[in-house]
């Protein structure tokens, strides 16, 4: 009988919906692809703490402050699960952070937009977390076991985040005229970048085909984007805000909303480092990392001393 090569039996496993675990054989490209995607996801959680952290000290009520603090703490926690999932692929957190700082690893471009008013905290929770959930729900079925399990855990918490954001928007939309204007303005600025979060159209996507074959990704960028639009348009109607897209309309035949053209030039620009906050976000992360170097060294030196003390003379 002909012996199967490992790549074939790997694909058989994937096709049978079995999870791939850290010790299983996997193609190098599968491993590289996963490291790229999971680390990008982890970095996004961590960099995403900045635009929201921007408003903790200015939250307009103590309750809102507590909810925002809890949410940002969750995001840091998601970063931790994802770094751990990524480390199972044979790369250390130090290396991952180095790749972030050198620009080799990316994070979601959405976090290169500024949070200008309190309504932006609402918009980020509602739209950005809302878009992330659509993607993450789909990724619960991803083929790599540790990534899939991290997603299941994360999804439980993300739905609370989205409700928090939507609640801020709803309160502002029924508030004073100024509050309503702030809410609409935040929706206007965050709507299109949120749609870009799903990545290029399927026909243009560099990583998609292989990722789909290996079931790292389960649904295409365009399918996920459409799902997000369909659910969000209705949510906007409920609180009386309008989606900033004149071409948006229900298509009875498709049973989906048709929508206008996405400005991919802006997407590319932000991706290439020219967004409003790219430099600031990266500089902050690098600065914090450098400022913490002496603390990490001290912790290592102390641990080393303790270890030596335990060795009998």
């Amino acid at each position, binding site marked *: 009988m002909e012996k199967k090569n490992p790549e074939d039996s790997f694909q058989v496993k994937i096709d049978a919906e079995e999870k791939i675990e850290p010790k299983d054989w996997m193609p190098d490209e599968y491993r590289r692809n996963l490291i790229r995607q999971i680390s990008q996801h982890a970095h996004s959680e961590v960099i995403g703490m900045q635009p929201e952290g921007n408003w903790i000290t200015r939250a307009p009520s103590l309750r809102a402050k507590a909810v925002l603090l809890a949410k940002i703490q969750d995001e840091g926690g998601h970063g931790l699960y994802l770094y751990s999932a990524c480390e199972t692929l044979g790369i250390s957190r130090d290396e991952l952070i180095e790749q972030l700082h050198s620009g080799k690893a990316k994070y979601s471009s959405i976090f290169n937009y500024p949070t200008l008013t309190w309504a932006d905290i609402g918009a980020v929770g509602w739209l950005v977390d809302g878009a992330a959930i659509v993607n993450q729900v789909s990724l619960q079925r991803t083929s790599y076991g540790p990534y899939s399990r991290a997603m299941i855990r994360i999804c439980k918490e993300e739905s609370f985040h989205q409700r928090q954001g939507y609640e801020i928007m709803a309160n502002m939309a029924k508030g004073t005229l100024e509050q309503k204007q702030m809410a609409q303005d935040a929706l206007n600025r965050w709507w299109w970048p949120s749609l870009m979060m799903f990545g290029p159209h399927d026909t243009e996507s560099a990583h998609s085909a292989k990722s789909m074959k290996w079931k790292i990704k389960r649904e295409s960028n365009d399918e996920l984007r459409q799902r997000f639009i369909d659910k969000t348009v209705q949510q906007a109607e409920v609180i009386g805000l309008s989606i900033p897209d004149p071409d948006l309309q229900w298509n009875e035949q498709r049973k989906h909303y048709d929508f206008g053209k996405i400005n991919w030039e802006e997407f590319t620009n932000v991706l290439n480092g020219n967004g409003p906050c790219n430099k600031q976000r990266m500089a902050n992360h690098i600065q*914090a990392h450098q400022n913490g170097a002496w603390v990490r060294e001290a912790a290592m030196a102390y641990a080393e001393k303790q270890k030596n003390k335990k060795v009998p003379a």
Partner: protein
Amino acid sequence: MTVNEALFNYSLRLGDNSLILSHRLSEWTGKAPILEEDLAITNIALDKLGQARFLLQYAAQLEGKGRSEDDLAYKRSEREFYNSLLVEQPNGDFAFTMARQLLNDVFDFFLYEELTKSTNEPLASLAAKSLKEIKYHLRHCSEWIIRLGDGTEESHNRIQNSMNELWAYTGELFEMNEIDSILIKENMVPDLSKLKPKWNNMLCEIFEKATLKKPEEGFMHTGSRKGVHSEYLGFILAEMQYLPRAYPSATW
């Protein structure tokens, strides 16, 4: 001053302390030396905020003028805040933040331990709940003090210098006024002078493990019991209160 008024003022003192320390800690979000520590600091900030909310709600209720926790947090001015000068000091580096935290946590630990025995039920139940949190905060930051003190030469110097600098804000923690006298008589709050030896002993034990020297006694800053603060508090309030002050008719 009535017992009720004294309780109102005492709740503000404790509530403001937690609120302002929470504010300072929340400034660390995204800036800690490692991600795990980012989560820990945010967690402590959240606990402190929870304590502040309970105390300001209670103060508002005692006052009985229809004000809310938010009115007390967002609509009082610099001279109406009673938090210690210690907690409003800027974060500085990680050593400075941990030193500030330790001096406050050891104090809070003994204060809240006594408050669990208060004849005032709301204070006693808050203290019982908060004490669990404070024990965790205290353990977390004393572990850092020991690591930094007995880590590298640089970390030792940084934590020693921070402790020396902040020591001048510790005298104020034990100051008492008419509010204390009234409430001590009712067995509602402890005599702070009796906490000082315990506070001192616990710190000395931690300093010893951390190979740190106890800072020399000297001049002590004062003022917060009368609402006289450092310049820093004004900036904290300007930032914290900006939205409710700018849009007074809005609810969020």
